[in-house]
């Protein structure tokens, strides 16, 4: 439809407000007709009513109207607004250029005045805020920067501005490196969960160097968002978007042309417009080189090999115009070509730092690698300055990344540089614009490299080396790689690093192109181990990919370099394959036979050391099937480390550290194995001693009754009979008299009491072990951890299962399926938890005839007269002393536990319990399959995996029920005990990876049972801190008490400040008061009771380390629990056994 008709119908619609009318025009009219359509006075008045914001307080969000997603529309809409202010923008640019110049040369006072002046004329903009924050950081430091940020955020209450200003502050922060900014920016972007056009805008405006795939590839999104800002920001964003597009392709050249042509006339102070015009203009009326004469002269002399002249002219130009980065480069490269050291210029501030670091950059020295970090940081601080973009472009070039950032740098100059010729690669229709420069030597030089084919006639430099490299690069570009290698092969390596880096890089990539992979690998290796030079372009991933793709690598097996290359990219089995091929080829079957001197002789020191350090590691060696356990792998690794210590003593400390780590991991593994195998532990010897004493009188009585019974039949009251009372009334049992015989009953008394002691004694009983080592957290957490690791169970909030965040996020685009999945997973979580609690509370219990409520307990020590009398009859002849009687009873109980019960429990775990879990998993999978989840959703795969994992876990758990009757008497160092505790706690709480800060002021030893004490404390931290795992800060400090009486260990952690901990404090106060009251210690066998009773019991009876002191504190939002152990001086260091 004709735009006039649309405009007329929109404007005459009385139901629409003015903004709605404008919006209608934006959406319905073709973008080419915007200018005419928007010329109505009322529309113009609305669109142009607030170009600038006078002060921070005046900042507001201008109407952006509706997003069209159409680049042409968004571009023309914004261009229409901006064009109206070209005159003001031109004045702004004059001041902006002055500001940049004084800022970069360190005249910060003047820069401050200048920015205030700019704001007084053109208001506050994102640009001016960015500059002010940068100035503040450079002038007053980062603290002042943070204060300034805070001030802005207090006044400007808009999240888009807030994000922008906060990013400006971080970019400016002098001590925040480029890498740190990158990470923080990534986190910020992820956390705000912006999507679509807003996310595009945030990335482009705040970190334009980002290698980011914009949702709207041409940045229509960015243009749209910029409608809300002041005209200054709108223009700057518009220009940056144009440059971005031109740097990628020629698609919108025609669209940009009229705007750029107009801007070039009316905003001559924006130095970029001429260069942009020459790229987009296809009408052969581009600018000519005369405007660049001084600059071109300087560049020409450099490419003609007249380095003295280029040095002199660049020096003069730099001092008058320190904003042009290409001059810095010519100055530094001229120095290098003249073989001169750095000659400082009378530059100050950032300009001087940039010059010094650029010189270092071109020298490619490994020991001056940090110059790259500094230049990256400066390019980030100056991201909105042309020079910042140019610096980033050079860094991209040095890295071999000729992407849009590189091209953006070329366009961010005040001159037409010969590098513009590169644009002809994708803007062919503007060739004639650049032909005007064709007679200039520097342009001829670049043209020769980019588009020339004749190495003999294309270059006209006096410098032989410059000509050789130009020829080699030209031949490389046209794909004549053999010739490139030939040309460069003629040059000796005694050349400046600047050229040596180029030489080896070009040869390396030529080898890659030609498929000469062995030569590429050898060259890569010499480059990698070069101590002098840093090679930034060398991309070893391509070489790795090429070699990996080969189906037959037999040509490479003799090369140590292959393992070295692979070690930089892969590990574990992928590295093992090449390692094993090499080591076998080298004739080594057993690493113990490896002759390191022979290796050094054959491959050199550096390669051998790298191989042994980084290739022959535990993670690689463990795939060798000659080993039967990880311990054997560790032994060989330690052997290698010993050899390395001799061959490379400079790294002795590193090797010793790794060796100690291996020893420590090995100790922790042994301790954990001991812990798992010794979970069920009854100190039978102590129990025997206790019972021998206790049953002296009872046994004496038994013996007397037995003696009397030989003369007459004595009977007694058998309490077991009460159970069959009803039966007894109607039936006559012939054997009942035997069960009532007095000697049997006397023995029975001893047996039952002895058994109950074995089971329930607070010091040595089985139930205490079950409670503190299995039921208390461990079993439940182990089972739950299987499903937690796979994100299959949800957490609870006040008894209600919450949504599972992983799948909730993954299925967010499909709310209906998401809800159904969440409901099913909540049910699954409940089923898993309920059944686990059933295992703990009903199955892992002791069953005797006295505990009818534990009738499902797997530890069935139920007996009756039939069984017991048979046992009595069999053993009666051997009941000759109390010692013997007790030994017989306890041995029977131990054997019963070891043989019958363990077998029964294993069977239950591998059959009934396993089957139940399998049924839960399978029914969940069946239900979820009906929902037809998206292909990329891994939920069902994870459920399938849980099926194998839970079986493995049950298998592992069933081994806990092996009864130990001798305890490990090893004293372990506190370090090992803590490490083992952390490992154990993290293993069963996969969502909480506690990384405590450990301070051991004094090493001391303890029994392995202390691990259970520490686990209770660590589980308390997880359960009661009420914090997200990443926010938990846990300190563990072990030291000697001030009076030298105790070794004390303190667990100290922060807690959620919003939670009231009064009840916890009250409980801890009671624990402290009752610390020395052991009356209720049997409570430790009951679940749900305080973990501190369990701690007391373990310290008292197992760790033998309880003292009369216990302390806690709650200060500054941190809970601290301190345990005090008795301090006994070690007889010798060997008393602490770790390995």
């Amino acid at each position, binding site marked *: 439809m004709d735009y006039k008709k649309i405009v007329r119908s929109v404007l005459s619609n009385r139901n629409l407000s003015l903004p709605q009318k404008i919006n209608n025009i934006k959406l319905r009219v073709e973008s080419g007709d915007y200018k005419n359509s928007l010329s109505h006075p009322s529309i113009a008045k609305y669109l142009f009513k607030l170009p600038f914001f006078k002060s921070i307080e005046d900042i507001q969000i201008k109407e952006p109207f509706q997003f069209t997603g159409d680049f042409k529309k968004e571009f023309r809409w914004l261009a229409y607004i901006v064009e109206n202010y070209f005159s003001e923008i031109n004045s702004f640019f004059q001041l902006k250029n002055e500001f940049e110049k004084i800022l970069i040369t360190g005249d910060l006072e003047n820069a401050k005045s200048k920015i205030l002046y700019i704001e007084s004329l053109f208001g506050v903009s994102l640009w001016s805020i960015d500059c002010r924050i940068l100035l503040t950081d450079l002038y007053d430091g980062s603290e002042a920067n943070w204060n300034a940020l805070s001030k802005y955020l207090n006044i400007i209450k808009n999240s888009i501005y807030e994000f922008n200003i906060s990013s400006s502050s971080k970019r400016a922060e002098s001590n925040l490196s480029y890498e740190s900014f990158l990470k923080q920016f990534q986190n910020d972007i992820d956390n705000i969960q912006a999507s679509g056009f807003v996310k595009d805008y945030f990335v482009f405006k705040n970190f334009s160097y980002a290698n980011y795939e914009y949702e709207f590839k041409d940045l229509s999104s960015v243009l749209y968002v910029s409608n809300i800002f002041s005209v200054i920001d709108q223009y700057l964003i518009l220009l940056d978007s144009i440059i971005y597009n031109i740097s990628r392709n020629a698609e919108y050249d025609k669209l940009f042309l009229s705007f750029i042509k107009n801007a070039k006339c009316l905003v001559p102070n924006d130095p970029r417009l001429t260069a942009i015009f020459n790229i987009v203009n296809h009408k052969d009326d581009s600018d000519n080189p005369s405007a660049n004469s001084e600059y071109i002269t300087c560049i020409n002399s450099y490419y003609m090999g007249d380095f003295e002249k280029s040095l002199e002219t660049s020096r003069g130009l730099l001092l008058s115009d320190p904003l042009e980065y290409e001059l810095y480069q010519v100055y530094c490269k001229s120095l290098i070509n003249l073989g001169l050291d750095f000659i400082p210029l009378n530059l100050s501030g950032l300009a001087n730092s940039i010059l010094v670091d650029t010189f270092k950059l071109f020298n490619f020295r490994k020991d001056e690698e940090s110059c790259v970090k500094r230049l990256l940081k400066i390019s980030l601080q100056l991201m909105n300055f042309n020079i910042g973009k140019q610096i980033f472009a050079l860094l991209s070039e040095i890295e071999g990344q000729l992407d849009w950032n590189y091209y953006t740098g070329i366009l961010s100059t005040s001159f037409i540089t010969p590098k513009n010729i590169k644009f002809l690669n994708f803007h062919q229709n503007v060739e004639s614009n650049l032909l005007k420069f064709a007679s200039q030597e520097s342009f001829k030089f670049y043209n020769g490299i980019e588009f020339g084919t004749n190495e003999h006639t294309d270059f006209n430099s006096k410098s032989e080396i410059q000509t050789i490299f130009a020829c080699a690069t030209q031949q490389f570009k046209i794909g004549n790689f053999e010739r490139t290698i030939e040309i460069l092969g003629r040059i000796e390596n005694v050349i400046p690093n600047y050229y040596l880096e180029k030489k080896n890089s070009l040869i390396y990539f030529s080898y890659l192109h030609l498929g000469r992979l062995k030569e590429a690998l050898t060259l890569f290796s010499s480059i990698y181990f070069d101590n002098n030079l840093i090679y930034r372009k060398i991309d070893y991933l391509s070489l790795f990919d090429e070699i990996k793709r080969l189906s037959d690598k037999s040509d490479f097996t003799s090369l140590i370099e292959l393992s070295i290359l692979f070690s930089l990219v892969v590990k574990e*089995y992928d590295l093992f*394959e090449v390692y*094993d*091929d090499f080591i076998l080829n080298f004739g080594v079957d057993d690493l113990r036979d490896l002759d390191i001197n022979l290796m050094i002789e054959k491959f050199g020191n550096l390669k051998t050391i790298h191989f042994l350090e980084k290739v022959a590691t*535990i993670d690689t060696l*463990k*795939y060798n*099937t000659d*080993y*039967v*356990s*990880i*311990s054997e792998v560790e032994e060989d690794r330690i052997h290698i480390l010993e050899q390395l210590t001799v061959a490379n003593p400079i790294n002795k400390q590193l090797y010793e550290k790794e060796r100690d780590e291996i020893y420590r*991991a090995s100790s*922790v*593994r042994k301790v*954990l*194995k001991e812990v798992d195998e010794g979970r069920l532990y009854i100190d039978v010897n102590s129990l025997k001693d206790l019972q021998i004493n206790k049953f002296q009188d009872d046994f004496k009585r038994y013996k007397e009754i037995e003696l009397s019974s030989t003369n007459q039949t004595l009977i007694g009251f058998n309490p077991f009979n009460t159970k069959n009372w009803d039966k007894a009334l109607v039936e006559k049992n012939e054997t009942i008299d035997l069960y009532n015989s007095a000697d049997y009953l006397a023995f029975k008394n001893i047996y039952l009491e002895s058994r109950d002691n074995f089971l329930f004694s607070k010091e040595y009983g089985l139930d205490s072990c079950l409670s503190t080592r299995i039921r208390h957290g461990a079993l439940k957490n182990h089972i739950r951890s299987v499903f937690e690791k796979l994100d299959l169970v949800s957490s609870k909030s006040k008894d209600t299962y919450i949504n599972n965040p992983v799948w909730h996020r993954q299925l967010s685009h499909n709310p209906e399926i998401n809800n159904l999945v969440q409901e099913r997973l909540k049910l699954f979580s409940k089923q898993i938890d309920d059944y686990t609690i059933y295992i703990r509370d009903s199955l892992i219990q002791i069953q005797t005839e006295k505990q009818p409520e534990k009738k499902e307990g797997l530890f069935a020590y139920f007996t009756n007269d039939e069984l017991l009398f048979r046992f009595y009859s069999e053993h009666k002849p051997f009941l000759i002393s109390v010692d013997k009687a007790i030994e017989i009873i306890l041995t029977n109980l131990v054997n019963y536990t070891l043989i019958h019960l363990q077998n029964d429990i294993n069977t239950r775990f*591998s059959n009934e319990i*396993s089957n139940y879990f*399998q049924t839960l998993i*399978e029914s969940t999978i069946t239900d979820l399959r009906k929902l037809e989840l998206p*292909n*990329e*959703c*891994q939920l*069902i*795969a*994870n459920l*399938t*995996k849980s*099926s*194998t994992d839970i*079986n*493995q876990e049950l*298998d592992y758990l069933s081994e806990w029920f092996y009864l130990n009757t001798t305890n490990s008497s090893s004293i372990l160092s506190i370090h090992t005990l803590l490490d083992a505790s952390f*490992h154990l706690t993290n293993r069963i709480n996969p969502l909480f990876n506690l990384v405590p800060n450990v301070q051991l002021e004094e090493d001391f030893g303890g029994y392995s049972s202390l691990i259970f004490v520490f686990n209770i404390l660590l589980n308390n931290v997880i359960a009661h801190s009420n914090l997200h795992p990443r926010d938990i800060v846990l300190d563990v400090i072990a030291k000697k008490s001030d009076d030298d009486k105790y070794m004390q260990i303190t667990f100290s952690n922060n807690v959620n400040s919003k939670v009231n901990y009064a009840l916890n404090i009250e409980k801890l106060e009671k624990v402290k008061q009752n610390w020395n009251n052991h009356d209720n210690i049997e409570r430790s066998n009951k679940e749900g009771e305080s973990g501190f009773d369990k701690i007391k019991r373990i310290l008292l009876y197992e760790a033998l380390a309880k003292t009369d002191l216990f302390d806690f504190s709650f200060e500054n939002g941190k809970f601290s629990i301190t345990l005090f152990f008795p301090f006994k001086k070690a007889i010798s260091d060997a008393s602490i056994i770790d390995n």
Partner: protein
Amino acid sequence: MRRLLIIEDDKEKIKRLLEFQGQHDIVVKESFQAGVSELKNNHKIYDFLILDMTIPLWEKGNNDLGGNYEQFGGEKVLREMKRRKLYTPTILFTMFDVFPTQDGNITFGKVDTLFKKEFSDFYIGAVLFSSEDDSWMEELSKLMGE
């Protein structure tokens, strides 16, 4: 009677395989290490290898603290067989119809296709195990030419 080597750690799958293939002479190894070791020493005596994808690295009790689980342990066994030319006809036996990887899911069918290409000298196909559906038996028999 044929000789089968099974590299598998899942008790249920082992039980079902033993029930189904009980007429054959069967050796079971439960880890990458034990499995590859057996292949290195005796691969010629086996008519078939039935191989699980997710297996432990070490036999029980010999592992490291970091865990013992190799998500693509079966593929590593195949790579060792190829590298060492231990060409025993091999059938992948798994209960996963998709395998989660860092780069997204890879389906059972895709894995089978990839393995057929990569290990064409000895890999003969894959069978999807299910405890509820016995069709895997038919597929296994078919691949074994029974």
